[in-house]
């Protein structure tokens, strides 16, 4: 097939470095990957086109980049799946990390966040002479997270990191879950208390982007939600994050529809007047846009609220 690769380039050694787009026309087999296309450019047209790549089989995690706006592995993305005959494919470096050159990003911030969660097994006492016994289910459950190849794709497209660089991020949290859920690890409580801090597990907004883009089916957001559940079960100290989850559920249980002012007041607490005052601009903007939510006694339960309460009961029984 004929296609055009429109590649965002950046050369830090230019006199006035700035990124720009360069287009390359290619004749290529439709079943070839975008990585094949990039390698073809590098090997036959322009060897200054810079990218990382190695295994070609979605195992090494080197070739994370954004293709048509979403982060993915170039080796796993077939040409035909992202462009039709004569079409253009846009290739850009990953987001949420500095660009070194062309499609190569600086992964140092990524790894520093992985290190924050103490990513090594911390068993209790001395190991036995033979292996630790562990159920086959517990180990195969972990293999879902261990299949993470640390490619950075989830971090690239994380919408929280986009606005808050201090968030520990989906990859590190999924890695943390791998230890929290390991029956051989004894640091569960310390790990959960660490993740309970600001920038930790409560900062995910559940946009699901990381689940969408993960090339290995790790489902980072699902792991974050599992961490939260384990945190609540472990009775980590209440934070705005955990209160938000609990109050949210409590309001829905009683009213069937969200009472947003009450959610804010109960999450932050009346004593936290600073945070509440900080929300005034948002309230004003909502009012100006015609969104005046009813709150407190004025916020009536929806008709059929008993159906919702039934659901809550069933979920509780199932657990």
């Amino acid at each position, binding site marked *: 097939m004929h296609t055009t690769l429109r590649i965002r380039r950046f*050369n*830090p*050694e230019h006199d006035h470095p700035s990124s720009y787009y360069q287009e390359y026309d290619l004749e290529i087999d439709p*079943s070839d990957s975008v990585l094949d296309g990039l390698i073809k450019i*590098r*090997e*036959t047209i*322009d*060897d*200054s086109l*810079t*990218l*990382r*790549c*190695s*295994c*070609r*089989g*979605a*195992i*090494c*995690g*080197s070739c994370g980049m954004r293709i048509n706006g979403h982060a993915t592995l170039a080796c*796993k993305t*077939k040409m035909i799946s992202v462009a039709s005959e004569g079409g253009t494919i846009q290739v850009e470096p990953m987001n949420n990390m500095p660009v*070194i*050159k062309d499609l*190569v990003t600086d*992964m140092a911030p990524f*790894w520093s966040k992985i*290190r924050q969660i*103490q*990513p*090594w*097994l911390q*068993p209790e006492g001395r*190991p036995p*002479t*033979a*292996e*630790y*016994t*562990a*159920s*086959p289910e517990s*180990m*195969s459950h*972990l*293999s879902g997270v*261990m*299949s993470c*190849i*640390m490619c950075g794709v989830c971090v690239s497209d994380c919408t929280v990191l986009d606005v808050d660089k201090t968030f520990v991020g989906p990859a590190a949290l999924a890695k943390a879950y791998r230890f929290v859920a*390991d029956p*051989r690890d004894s640091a569960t409580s310390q790990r959960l208390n660490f993740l309970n801090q600001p920038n930790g597990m409560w900062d995910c907004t559940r946009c699901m982007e990381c689940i969408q883009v993960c090339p290995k089916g790790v489902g980072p957001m699902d792991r974050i939600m599992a961490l939260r559940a384990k945190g609540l079960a472990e009775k980590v100290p209440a934070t705005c994050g955990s209160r938000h989850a609990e109050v949210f559920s409590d309001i829905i249980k009683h009213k069937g529809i969200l009472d947003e002012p009450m959610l804010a007041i109960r999450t932050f607490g009346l004593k936290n007047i600073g945070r509440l005052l900080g929300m005034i601009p948002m309230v004003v903007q909502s009012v100006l846009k015609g969104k005046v939510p009813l709150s407190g006694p004025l916020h009536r339960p929806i008709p059929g609220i008993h159906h919702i309460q039934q659901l809550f009961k069933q979920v509780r029984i199932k657990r």
Partner: protein
Amino acid sequence: MNSSFSYEVLVIGAGLAGMRAALAAHNQGASVAIMTKVHPVRSHSNAAQGGINAALTDRGDHWEDHAFETVKGSDYLGDQDAVEILAQEAGQDIIALEHMGVIFNRSEEGHLGTRRFGGQKRARTFFVSDFTGQALLHVLYEQTLQAKIPVYEEWFATSLVKDDQGRCAGVVAFEIRTGTFALFRAKAVIMATGGLGRVYEPSTNALICTGDGMAVAYRAGAPLMDMEMVQYHPTTLKGKGLLITEAARGEGAYLLNSKGERFMERYAPNMLELASRDVVSRAEQIEINEGRGVKGCVLLDCRHLGRTFLQDRLGQIYAEAKTFANVDLAEEPLPIRPGMHYQMGGIKTDTEGRCWDVQGQWAGVPGLFAAGETACLSLHGGNRLGANSLLDTVVFGRRAGTCAAEYANTISSPTVPDSVIDADNNLVAGIVGRKGPGERAAALRLEMGITMNKHVSVFRDEEGMEAALRHITNLKTRWSDLTIQDKGQVFNTGLIAALELGFMLDCAEAIIVGALTRQESRGAHFRTDFLDRDDEHWLKHVLLYHKPDGPPHVDYLPVRITQWQPQIRVY
């Protein structure tokens, strides 16, 4: 402007062998650092799918059985003292890995579970689904983080440095991100740079497997051994040559020809699809050559295993077949063919990973160590058994790291001047600065790969190999004139490709010279002009010493036999 660094032990390469060696040296109290041209978790150990062998005595297995099958698999070229160590120490290393956090598959009782692998009568392969290498690699990386071992990521080593007594004194390397050269002084250097698969096209190996460490050590005076022993894996995908794990056959998949016959019945009536890899690859190639293939392939049939089983125990290749071959393994057979996979040969080492002989029977470089695919003990001889390579990396990585730390403790710091970096610095400046429309490194590499795959593959003969040698010699000349368009210092991957090609051409030449020298058929080395194994003349290793101008100097070493005399090899 240029900086220098100093450690007692410097490990080049951060795959399983490198990280295991670094941890062992660290545990001995040595100051140790790792240098790698990629991030550690990008290393090619990732790609090992099926598992890691060990005969655990508490499960009724015997290390002697594992050792014998390894020796038989090697076609009696493996050194039996090394094989005995491998088999005896396997159990402790598997358990150590489990204690570090590897999530090995379990039995219902919660103990480690096993699967069958080729060339072995017993199920002794421990595994994590079909991404065992990745599961091990990430855990060893976690351990290096915990140990706070410094890692020089994306640094490219260009040559070994020796002091005026000929001892290894460190390496010259440059930081890929800045293009800046530096001298790394070290009392001991451990080469753990993996294989050389890109010498061939296609290959199952990643694009980073370019034989750098072998060439760097070879140029510095360390001999390469048994380089003719290049393994073709029986199940690789057409096209780019991606690997389909032997675990598929270990779990019960069949090989079929175009007539639907399980043709292995004719070649290995007892072990069938689980004969050793050289035997299966030759059988497949004969089927294909004699017209019983399917478009240059034979078929791997997994349908009877069922979708749930495939997704659970062989999930990675289930996805791989779908993504890269558009085949649903539960519904249709997968076309596969033999493909270049592993280098049994490498930098000659003893059982402690030393690349010199303390007894002085062969010459080498004191202070240089090697482990993993880069090294050749020889453990795998003429043919490596599946799931023995991961084991090799952890057992002999550990031993090399321990010995290197002990060695470093006994010697004073070698002295070398900072100016030793000048030669490589000038070489690189010359390549980058070269003008004109010269040839591209990629084009030369492709020529090399195709030539090697044509003439130095499953079947070989003198005429073909002589032609290949002429071609490689020609490519070496053209290498000196190649040009790159990228004139920058920062992340110049065109430059890296040029340097890697230089290393690969040395490796290619060594493979061919070794293969021309060995006038017999043994293991993976099958010559149509010398059909039989010839123990009288060739039960010995071929050693190659680098000569700057002209072909390598050839020497020999006897095979060390402890308890298994060579027998006729039938599967």
